């Protein structure tokens, strides 16, 4: 892991920037005229080696998404924002960097049939380019891959819908009809949005940043939807796309809505990935399933650390499942209990592929009904969630007051949850003076979680940062606990 990872962590831990709205305004011009639609019947684009993909250029015409016109609710500059400000547009380019070349050399040494270049390696392309279905093996060079993660990666392969999309009929087309053509609707559901991201940012079939890749130099993945969404350069404008004609992003508790949708979407992707990893022939036990820093730390004389795990086995505690495992919500019990069964199996010295595969499936089944849930947050509900996450993070600690048994991942996830919650709290109850205090404590936690310059791991033998974080968390708990007498 290198600077790239550091950037990722930094991105994850960045304080929320105040104003992320209307990021495409810079590219937007003004035009009041009606949209001149092309003829209704557009002949279907013939099948290409890329299947139904048409490429980002197909969307970027000046009169479509590559122009400067600005009409409320429409996204005429989407392609420009994407190409100019969105790192996804560079996803393919990084496959040509020296780091990627080195990775390929390291991974492919001794294998004659291995792809000679990252731009031909399906393992890389499935996330670093726009593909309709995950590819396998060595992939012929295809200029469409140069787009990186383009429009169709998230919105769906467009061959069958792009023709209608440019007509005035598109708006009135029912969502089911659009979906049948391959269009992916992302405006009406945060869960759908989060799932789309999680396909790569957590992984899935054919998209596996496993320990081999990380060891060869790939940054680790640590996806949290609310943070990613906040930091994302938006190529769309506020629009009421939901069935009840409200804008998802105008919800007063948007950050928490996103956190909630994200934790289920991330868990779904994580469990599917685990299920896929149990396939015969894959590396097993897959080390990327385990907490990075339970092994990756210098050997030092730190008795507090040694007491964290008594059996000398790394903990199976994937980043993505932490917010669910911290939950004590009875509605989540079927899911959380099946995840704990899975944890028991993964924490064996030689986890059984078949058992793990079955338990992952059971967990996925328990997860399905939760993916579609809508959450209406009230201040007491937000506070209850915070307390649940705080107490959940302490569940492995014997003294019950510090996070000494919690890993960096668990503490970072707690920080992200509390940060999303306090942002929601600020809009729900603008008068509450506790919000400011909580934010101050969160800033302490954030500063303690940051790695030393030059490091991609906590790299300290001292318990002091853990104690500082624990103290800040205790203060937040005290502020939010309804039992605490308020002045």
């Amino acid at each position: 892991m290198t600077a790239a990872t550091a950037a990722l962590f930094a991105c994850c831990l960045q304080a929320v920037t105040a104003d992320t709205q209307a990021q495409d305004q810079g590219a937007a011009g003004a035009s009041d005229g009606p949209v001149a639609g092309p003829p209704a019947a557009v002949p279907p684009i013939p099948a290409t080696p890329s299947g139904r993909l048409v490429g980002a250029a197909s969307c970027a015409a000046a009169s479509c998404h590559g122009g400067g016109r600005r009409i409320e609710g429409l996204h005429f500059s989407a392609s420009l924002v994407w190409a100019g400000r969105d790192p996804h547009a560079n996803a393919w380019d990084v496959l040509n960097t020296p780091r990627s070349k080195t990775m390929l050399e390291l991974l492919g040494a001794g294998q004659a049939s291995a792809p000679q270049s990252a731009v031909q390696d399906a393992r890389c392309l499935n996330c670093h380019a726009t593909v309709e279905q995950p590819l396998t093996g060595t992939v012929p060079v295809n200029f469409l891959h140069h787009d990186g993660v383009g429009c169709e990666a998230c919105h769906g392969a467009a061959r069958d819908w792009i023709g209608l999309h440019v007509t005035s009929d598109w708006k009135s087309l029912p969502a089911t009809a659009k979906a049948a053509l391959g269009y992916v609707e992302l405006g009406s559901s945060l869960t759908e949005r989060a799932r789309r991201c999680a396909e790569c940012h957590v992984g899935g079939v054919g998209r596996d940043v496993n320990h081999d890749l990380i060891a060869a130099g790939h940054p680790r993945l640590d996806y949290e939807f609310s943070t990613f969404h906040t930091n994302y350069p938006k190529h769309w404008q506020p629009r009421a796309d939901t069935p009840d004609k409200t804008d998802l992003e105008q919800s007063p508790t948007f950050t928490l809505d996103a956190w909630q949708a994200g934790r289920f979407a991330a868990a779904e992707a994580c469990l599917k990935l685990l299920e896929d990893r149990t396939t015969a022939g894959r590396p097993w036990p897959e080390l990327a399933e385990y907490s990075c820093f339970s092994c990756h730390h210098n050997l030092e004389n730190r008795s507090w650390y040694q007491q964290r795990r008594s059996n000398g086995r790394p903990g199976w505690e994937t980043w993505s499942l932490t917010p669910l495992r911290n939950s004590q919500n009875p509605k989540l019990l079927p899911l959380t209990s099946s995840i704990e069964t899975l944890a028991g199996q993964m924490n064996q010295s030689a986890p059984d592929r078949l058992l793990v595969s079955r338990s992952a499936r059971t967990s996925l089944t328990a997860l399905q009904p939760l993916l579609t849930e809508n959450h209406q947050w009230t201040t007491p509900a937000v506070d209850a969630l915070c307390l649940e996450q705080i107490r959940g993070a302490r569940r492995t600690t014997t003294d019950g007051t510090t996070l000494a048994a919690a890993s960096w991942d668990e503490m970072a996830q707690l920080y992200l949850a509390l940060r999303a919650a306090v942002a929601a709290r600020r809009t729900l109850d603008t008068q509450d003076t506790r919000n400011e205090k909580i934010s101050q404590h969160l800033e302490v936690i954030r500063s303690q979680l940051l790695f030393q310059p030059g490091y991609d791991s906590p790299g300290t033998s001292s318990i002091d940062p853990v104690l500082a974080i624990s103290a800040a968390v205790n203060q937040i708990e005290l502020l939010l606990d309804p039992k605490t007498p308020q002045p």
Partner: protein
Amino acid sequence: MRSIAALLLLLTAASLPAQDTSCQALFTRTGFTQRTSLPIGNCGDCHSGSTQSPRVAARLGNPGGSKWIRGDEILIWLGETSVADASQTPAPRDLSAVDRHAQAWTSLRSTTAEQMGVVLGKPGQLHRDRACLACHTSLPVYNLECESDGLISAALESDVRLTSGVSCEGCHGTSGDAATQGADLPNGWGTAHFALRNWRNMPPDEKCRHGYLDVRSVASRTKICVSCHVGNAELGRVVTHEMYAAGHPPLPPFELQTFEQQMPKHWREYHEKPELLRQEFEAATGLKPADPAEQQARELLVSALITWSESMKLTADLAEQKAPQELVRSEWPEFAQFDCYACHHDLRHDGWRQQAQIKGHPGRPRLIPWPATLAELAWNVTSSTPEAAATPGIGFAEVRQATVSTPFGDTRELIKAARAAAASAEQIASRLETSTLTPQQQQAVTAGLLNAGTAATVDYDSARQIAWSWLLLNSATADEQQKLFPQLFLQLHQGRAESDPIPGSNETVTVIRIDPALSLPPIAGYDPQSFRAAFETIRKSQSE
């Protein structure tokens, strides 16, 4: 007294299988359980004073004192100076000169052990845990009576055979033999080695019949040392990752002669023995001393091959779950068999691990790398001989391949490869032990060390092995060592002073314990570049 009697009973009550008297069979669980452990006090009769004592002299059959042995072995082991009579106060002990083996048992009551006990769920009880006692005492621990919690019975707690740590019998063999006690011909070597007049010049194989381990043979000696310093599954001597995680200090890489030099010497080297007795010995055995330089180089190679062989045997035994479960709590993959620092390092941007860009199989931890380092040198030096060329090699590639096919390796392939490697390396070692290195081969040892020292990226433990061997063959002084390889000498002697209770008394004694707070940071801060630079300097000065 009752406890000793009970112990004797326990150790002898086991049904005695037909005795396989070969030296090979001796260093096995069966070999050990045929014997009875005797208290160190028995040895002290002769070995804790000087050979001037009339009783000692009488037993040695040499009124003037033989000087074949020293006679103050136990005093050296304890770090005590001898005094003429009991009324005199002994001089203060030089703590750094104490043989650490004497502290082996008391360290089970140290602050580190206390903390480990808490983590392992046996607070304050590790000195009763056979998994620890297997290395921290000289006793064969298999038949010690256990209470329901798996700990040895409290009655045994203060038995001197436990509390004396790794004492005489730990390396020289279990000395008693209840079955033949009182018989005309004593079988146990505890009696035989002074009762049999021809003991000194007796061939090792014959001594083995009395339970005496061969410490003259470098191969046998290495096996004895590495049974704890690397591990031996059959004997229940395994440091598991669970123990490390609870706080056991990392086992340092082992190099026989270097370790022997660190040990307070309780023996006389052959050339230090009286000439008359040497002549007698040579006449009786037909043996002649080898050229010292040749012998040193050969012993380096033999012990390296045996260390590799034993470590492969341990890996195979643990992978096959062959270790006795009542002694060894280990499941495969046993992380302790893998390179500690493959995983245990902070993640740094562009650190040396990333720059090294070791090709092939990133993310698959390798086995502990250091046992292969000197063994590879030994193989390179000896593989040109016709006998070696006829063997299939000593398995580096096969073992490596078996560990990378999936994380922690394909268990079945690994067992197969490790067993083959162990057998082959042992065979080559035993042939090498009785042969003589040619001058070319001796030069190849030096050249091989230079090559290994200037290789691209050498891990910390392997670097220590290479440096130690180089310093050994070049008789470097302590100052030179420190100057050449400041990173590689952990100054374990500086350690941390602790007060240990003297077993069976109310007094305490100050000891020096390994302090991980001092010894671990240099490992974390190790930079292969500077190690390589030191060897480049050596190479340059050699070529000038």
